[in-house]
């Protein structure tokens, strides 16, 4: 009766893989976030020019990097999903999109907050901020396209196509915005001096980037697990998972009662 299942066994393997990887990512994420933030926000020296307000880079820069990193990994997953018709890759696209969007949003908000003391305005049409804003639009497009479809199979493939189209466009958009910005550069925008960042600030920044990467990895893995379960909810292995779980819980309850 369940013979038609075996091609989907891969989902189960993927689920197991997520389960194995998840603790490592989670531990690295928690540890490096604590280290990075305490180090960066508490101990790293204040900037001679920007005083303490520069410390927002410990959040802004990692989230900005990860927002783009997430988009590239999403595009790679989309490519794999379309070319080799792997459903797990489709699910990965869906798992990554909202996380990437959240990172983009964090980068935008922290960027704007940083802009207030730096440029004296909450929003400046700086090239990087503008690209980041467009990146957010692209993410939102993928997410809302996925949600618009009733059939989640078609939804996944449609989002993959859009993610790929976006990925091809993204460099074009990025460079055109940069070019546009140099063309229209207003007086308010002060570029950072290109000098190398001091080691006392560089290392906490690196730790924070690692922390954000591990954090994104953790959340994506959790979301991917959910997506797999949701998509495969009628398959016996998922049902088995649930019954095992409830059995365990019952046991626990029984143990407690015994105590």
């Amino acid at each position, binding site marked *: 009766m369940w*013979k*038609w299942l075996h*091609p989907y066994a891969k989902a189960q393997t993927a689920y197991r893989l997520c389960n194995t990887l998840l603790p490592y990512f989670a531990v690295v994420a928690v540890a490096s976030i604590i280290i990075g933030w305490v180090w960066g926000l508490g101990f790293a020296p204040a900037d001679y020019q920007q005083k303490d307000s520069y410390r927002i880079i410990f959040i802004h820069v990692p989230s900005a990097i990860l927002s783009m990193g997430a988009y590239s990994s999403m595009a790679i997953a989309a490519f794999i999903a379309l070319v080799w*018709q792997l459903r797990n890759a489709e699910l990965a696209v869906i798992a990554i999109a909202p996380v990437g969007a959240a990172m983009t949003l964090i980068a935008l908000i922290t960027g704007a907050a940083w802009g207030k003391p730096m440029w004296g305005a909450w929003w400046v049409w700086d090239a990087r901020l503008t690209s980041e804003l467009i990146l957010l639009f692209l993410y939102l497009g993928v997410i809302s396209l996925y949600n618009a479809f009733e*059939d989640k*199979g078609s939804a996944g493939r449609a989002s993959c196509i859009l993610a790929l189209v976006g990925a091809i466009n993204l460099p074009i958009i990025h460079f055109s915005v940069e070019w546009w910005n140099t063309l229209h550069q207003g007086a308010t925008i002060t570029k950072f001096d290109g000098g190398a960042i001091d080691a006392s600030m560089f290392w906490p920044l690196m730790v924070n980037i690692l922390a954000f990467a591990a954090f994104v990895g953790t959340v994506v893995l959790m979301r991917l697990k959910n997506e797999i379960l949701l998509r495969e*909810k*009628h398959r016996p292995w998922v049902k088995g998972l649930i019954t095992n779980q409830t059995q365990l819980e019952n046991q626990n309850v029984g143990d407690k009662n015994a105590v």
Partner: protein
Amino acid sequence: MRVFLLLKVENITCIRQDRCLFENLSFELPQSTIMQLEGPNGAGKTSLFRILAGFTRLEQGKRFWFGKNVVDDEETFLSELLYIGHKTGVNTQLNAVENIRFWQETHGYTHISKNDVSDCYDLLANLGLVGLEDIPVRMLSAGQQRRVALARLWISEAKLWMLDEPFTAVDKKGVTLLQEQFKKQLARGGSVFLTSHQDLTEHFEDLKILSLEYKI
């Protein structure tokens, strides 16, 4: 005469909205055969048709056209396929002649003359649409619109006809007309694969029947 196997289907499975419509379905459709797909509403007749025509991605199983896997040579298969689904593909803003011309041109049919419009008019007259040739199809009745869609059977040179509920909204005379056309298709070595709730056994002696069951 040797009878070729037109279409062979192996182990296809369809899952819709978490419900398994059919699994490991296999069947064969030889040349000069009419096959009726039966089953209650919701059994997956249309889904099967859409899988065979290639609209829905084949999750599992294979289709063979003259022994060749369709995935390897989709063009040959599509050039020998005529599919008419629930949505008939008739543009209702255009008139019947324009619709026929469009099908003819986009499928490379040369059965009726490309330049001489009288062929088209004869065909429509045969279908009982005299005097309605120049009216936008949206002004016609449902049955007449269906007849315009089915006019494709008269210009088609495809080997396999896949017709999803061809008799819907067609009157008795029209049904007879269609059945005659099916016989012509069988006579020239083609096959007809259709879904219908009508009993066709009395009209076609060697009707093959493929049944789908409704599963929960």
